[in-house]
């Protein structure tokens, strides 16, 4: 804590100037990179403004917002298991993990599993099993708890679960409430459209189209901000269909009530896996990372999980990707793998 405080104090002086320099540099980089993916000039300025706006909401971590690097703020991995959080898990003999039951290929239950055990399966579930295996020497010593999207943070804070592995995006705002592991997956908002559609990506081909996004989702917020800043064509209808869950958007797409869906690329891939007539179009237009969320006080657990993830990325991650995601995200996993030069807060 002392180090962090000193760091903050420093930032107020020359550090602040340095941070601003970094923001300027980032803005320049954005300006250079974004036009390549077919965006208008208004985009970069809008993105910068958005970052500042968020910074006001999450005063506790101004620095995270300005640098926009929440994925690089976890604790350094360690195999040390002497901390209190890990001791409690070992005493229990099992680890409670909050997961999703509805995300095909990530965390879901096959209703046709006839051997009497409708087990959860998917990319997130593989990670959960791996964490149990490394900490408790048994991949089955895990109690899955299905939690809704908007209950993820509360479940951690209330101690209902030890951790959440549930396509959860690492964000600066959430960092005030929970601790994140290092990222285990890279994704971004992406457009999903029928294969026969004229939509080619997050660009002017969306003009006059009806776009579905889940209410209260990152996708919905991004669409609104982009339409304000002019990054998204004004004639695209983003407000008339906003169902409670991202999967509901695929229902509306199949029924012809909307022309395209915008959601996390990873979840869009899970939708595409359920309907061979739709596909992901264009590149992701934001960058987000999924991480394992834990209680802020369980520092020992965060470090231990980071160690598990570091090992997992070397051995296991690729197999799980091939099993669950390659069919819809492509055989090349480099776009989904978090950067190799992982940075930490300390």
């Amino acid at each position, binding site marked *: 804590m002392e180090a962090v405080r000193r760091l903050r104090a420093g930032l107020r002086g020359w550090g602040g100037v340095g941070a601003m320099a970094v923001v300027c540099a980032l803005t320049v980089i954005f300006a250079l990179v974004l036009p390549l993916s077919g965006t208008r000039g208004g985009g970069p300025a809008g993105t910068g403004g958005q970052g500042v706006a968020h910074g006001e909401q999450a005063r506790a971590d101004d620095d995270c917002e300005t640098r926009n690097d929440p994925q690089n703020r976890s604790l350094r991995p360690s195999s040390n298991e002497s901390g209190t959080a890990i001791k409690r898990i070992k005493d229990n003999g099992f680890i409670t993990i909050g997961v999703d039951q*509805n995300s095909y290929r990530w965390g879901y239950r096959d209703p046709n599993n006839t051997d*009497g055990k409708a087990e959860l399966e998917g990319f997130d579930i593989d990670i959960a099993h791996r964490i149990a295996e490394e900490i408790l020497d048994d991949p089955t010593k895990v109690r899955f708890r*299905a939690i*809704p999207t908007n209950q993820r943070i509360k479940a951690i804070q209330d101690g209902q679960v030890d951790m959440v592995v549930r396509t959860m995006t690492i964000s600066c705002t959430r960092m005030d409430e929970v601790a994140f592991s290092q990222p285990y997956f890279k994704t971004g908002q992406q457009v999903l459209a029928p294969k026969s559609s004229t939509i080619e990506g997050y660009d002017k081909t969306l003009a006059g189209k009806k776009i579905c996004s889940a209410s209260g989702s990152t996708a919905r917020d991004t669409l609104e901000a982009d339409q304000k800043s002019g990054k998204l064509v004004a004639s695209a209808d983003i407000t008339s269909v906003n169902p409670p*869950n991202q*999967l509901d958007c695929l*229902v509306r797409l199949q029924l012809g009530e909307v022309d395209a869906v915008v959601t996390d690329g990873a979840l869009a891939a899970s939708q595409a896996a*359920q309907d061979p007539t739709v596909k992901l179009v264009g590149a992701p237009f934001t960058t987000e990372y999924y991480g394992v969320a834990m209680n802020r006080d369980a520092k020992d657990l965060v470090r231990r999980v980071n160690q598990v993830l570091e090992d997992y990325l070397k051995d296991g991650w690729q197999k799980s990707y091939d099993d669950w995601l390659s069919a819809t995200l492509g055989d090349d996993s480099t776009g989904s793998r978090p950067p190799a030069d992982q940075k930490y807060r300390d």
Partner: protein
Amino acid sequence: MTYTPKGSAPPSAPPASPGASPSVPPQATPASRSPLSPAAPDGGPPRRTAFAEGLDQLRAAATTEPGRLRVIGAVLALLVVAFGSVTAWQMNDRATAADDVLTSSQPLSSAAAGVYSSLADANTAASSGFLAGGQETPESRARYEREIGEAADGLATAAAASEPGSESEQRVAELNALLPKYKGLIERARANNRLGYPLGGAYLRYANSIMQDQMLPKAQKIYDNENRRLRDDYSDATSYPWAAIALGVVALGALAWAQRRNYLHTNRVLNHGLVAATAASTIVLLWLVAGHTLARSHLNDSYDHGVRSLTVLNDARIASLKARGNENLTLISRGAETLEIKKDVSVDKFDHRFGQEMKALASQLATAGKLADDDKGAQPVKSALANMQAWQDRHRSARTADEEGKYQCALDQVIGGKATPDCRAGDKPTGECFDKVDENLNTALGHEKREFEQAARGGLDAMTGLPVGAAVLAVLAAAGAVLGIGRRLSEYR
């Protein structure tokens, strides 16, 4: 009688007011008079209307006893006939309304309730079948199809019964359009579920929201309209025939007065005709009051113990169906939809709705228990209540299992499975309790329906023959009155 035919002012004009109305010409100027009554100059009286002449004649006749008797006879006959026809007319209205209650508005209200509960039942059956996945039982599939068919039949009945251009007709048309859409979504949900895609669950939730947010409210509207019609028929059938009763009292009073007058004039105690008229009128009045009071009490009984019980039991059945549907959907949606019940407190939407419907079920069963007036009606309600409590206990156990991540165990405790060491209550599903609640409610509904029909039929029977009887007796009474007076008149010839 002589006055000057010409002259600007009659000499006899009062001099007191010479300037009172100078502009008004004298009433009789020859110019205006002559074309109207050319006979006037000869001094004859002006011509009078037939009515006025008749009135004068009557007045003249009334001064003689035979004349008075004629008038009395006519008035008596008129009063008695008016009494009879108003009785027949008012009681005919009430009997028709009572008949409508029994044969038209109550069956239609039941049919509308049937549409509602069939739709809710189909929705519940669809979610139960969905939970079983590819292993959906033939029973659950058959139940879904049957309820959809019954809903469609009920809609056809409601369409035939609704007046053109009415709100009900519009709602029926809208429901007819939504039903195939709903069914299409359910089939898509099934197909995706069979492939093992969670998308199936999303389709089912969409179908469910169309059912809950669009179809059921429309069905409720039709049900409300039919219930209003039923209440109107009831109030038409039970309103007091005041006009008939008042006329009856007046007619009897007039008959009594005529007989007293007869006695005072002749010292004869009895006039056969008038006595017969009095007897017939008294019978009609007593029949009217007693028959209507009896019918009214039967009808009120059929409302209190039949219609009210039926309404509460229908509501209870619908609440249990909805609760079951939401219980299934809690497992199907698996946390996909939440509801913020107060700030920062979010709960699973379907589990929350389950709780609400169970609360409604409990309160309706309590009301139904109070309304049940005999053991045969109270017994099934009591059993339903006990089953509902067991249901809630089992539901809690299933929820605990689900929250602990034992999905299969939770599923077994909802749709039925095997008891295992891991899941001891796996063979005690909430579905059993729901089925028993449903069964008991159906028994109670059948009983109350019989009670209603019996009481309403009693009410209708109490009014049978009254309109015709009143008419016939009134004619007899009128004849009696006329004959009785005629007998007195003949004494003057």
